[in-house]
């Protein structure tokens, strides 16, 4: 067992206090390398939280809450924080989930209809394009709204306004994150059955982390400029401000 003890007690390289902080993909990779095991556990929590189907929105938002904490490099007690967020956001998440599911569903329906029409008449290409754009934009708003919801408590209308503002200001990071999520699932499909454990281990949590990572900076921007910035920050949020 000596080797096991040595593995645990061996000194590391140390962490420089004033080392330049990584940004972009390098930071994403660094956090993933550091927190991948937490993400695996988070993925399992998400799946367990989603088993009842109606709880899927709350599980998504709870996963977003943990992901934001990981992005902000703050301390997380996974099970406790997940269950607390799950309970705290259950009603809000469910209502917003229903609203966005309805909106995205409507968008998808419109896309299907206009795409079928466009095969016969090119005039339908214009509404098809608008439908695609609006649907994607709704998904981008949903991403921002979800992250903003777990970053700050605020009234629903203000939350929607800020999410829309963030989606207009910087939609690209959210789109990139959504592409990453799509790539994860694409990878799972093309590598099946080798990738059979991907959804069970990482796909949901890593996907949500990618969304939180992509959206977080914009969310902070809109929170700074909005009147809601005066509202108290989430509990424990102050320890991130030291990093």
């Amino acid at each position, binding site marked *: 067992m000596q080797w096991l003890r040595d593995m*645990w007690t061996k*000194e590391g390289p*140390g962490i420089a206090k004033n080392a330049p902080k990584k940004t972009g993909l390098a930071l994403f990779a660094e956090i993933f390398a550091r927190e991948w095991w937490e993400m695996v556990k988070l993925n399992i929590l998400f799946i367990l939280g989603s088993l009842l189907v109606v709880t899927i929105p709350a599980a998504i938002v709870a996963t977003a809450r943990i992901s934001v904490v990981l992005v902000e490099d*703050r*301390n997380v007690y996974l099970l406790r924080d997940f269950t607390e967020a799950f309970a705290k956001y259950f009603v809000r998440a469910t209502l917003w989930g229903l609203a966005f599911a309805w909106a995205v569903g409507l968008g998808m329906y419109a896309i299907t209809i206009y795409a079928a029409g466009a095969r016969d008449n090119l005039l339908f290409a214009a509404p098809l394009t608008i439908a695609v754009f609006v649907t994607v934009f709704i998904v981008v708003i949903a991403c921002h709204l979800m992250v903003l919801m777990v970053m700050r408590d605020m009234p629903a209308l203000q939350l929607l306004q800020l999410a829309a503002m963030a989606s207009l200001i910087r939609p690209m990071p959210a789109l990139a994150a959504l592409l990453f999520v799509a790539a994860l699932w694409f990878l799972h499909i093309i590598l099946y059955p080798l990738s059979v454990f991907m959804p069970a281990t990482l796909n949901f949590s890593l996907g949500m982390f990618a969304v939180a990572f992509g959206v977080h900076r914009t969310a902070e921007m809109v929170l700074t400029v909005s009147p809601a910035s005066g509202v108290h920050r989430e509990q424990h949020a102050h*320890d991130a401000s030291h*990093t």
Partner: protein
Amino acid sequence: MASISLKKLNKSYGALTVVHDIDLEIADKEFIILVGPSGCGKSTTLRMIAGLEEISNGELIIGGDMVNEVPSKDRDIAMVFQNYALYPHMTVYKNMAFGLQLRKASRDTIDQKVQEAAKILDITHLLNRKPKALSGGQRQRVALGRAMVRNPAVFLLDEPLSNLDAKLRSTMRAEITKLHKRLDATFIYVTHDQIEAMTMADRIVVMKDGHIQQVDTPQNLYDRPVNMFVAGFIGAPQMNLLPSTIERRGDGYAALFDGRELPLPAHFDKSRIEPYVGRELVIGVRPENLHELPPADITPENLAPFDAVVELAEPMGSEIHLNLTAGGRNLIARVSPRFKAMIDDGVKLVVDTTNMQLFDKETERSILY
């Protein structure tokens, strides 16, 4: 209030007694260091205070209450171990918070205390990292932080700097001393490194074979060792101990070592020296009291010539440690880096006898104190 009393404290493992009847009074907010060679019982004593070792005999009183039977967790103490003992699967934050969680502290309280301790120790940027990424010094800070968050009345530190390199150890020595002043708590610190003891402690407890040899301030231990063990243990390089005989010289006395005559200073208590006239004893001369030139600030009657042969010269930068032989004995002198000496050369040094020590050859105890 965290004064600590050890009264006839004993620790035995079957027939083997490793700590013998230790009596020690530690004042509130004092920084006391237990020092001694390996196996002298210093860590066992600390562990008895911590409650990690059962007390075989005697009384341990903390803050006026006898705590022999009080579990470790209820003694209002925190301990920092040599190997840090951090939980490898927990982040720094969780390592520091764990003790408070077990005490059912509220989340806000835990967070506030962890943040405060992290700020003091300058480890805020490490809070969400695992110990495996941290260097030895950073781990040590975390271990200290884990003790600090509990805000204990007494800190017990068991060789906390032993695993660090020399440079970091020096930095951390200063950090811990500052921390003691800042926290205003009682610190009991175990080390075998006498430099740590000398630089950090309010008082030092020198131990050997489970017995306390001397308890005093660092300077007093250095200037007035009560026996040959303390004299040899405190000070680096260690004190030169030379067998000599005492002779009367007019009104005073002189120690004779291998034909060399070293006059004893007039301030020595004559009544203590008189019984040793004509008898063998051991004189102690610190390496810095062997000079290449007579120092201007020492009166000539306390100086004596001293011939020796150089065996080795160790340049230390600010000084040279000369390893010498004289009268079949090995000695060390600290001389100026400008002093040129070749191996096997005879050198003429000057002994300053002002701070010379005299020990009984049989009992090894000082005859001066």
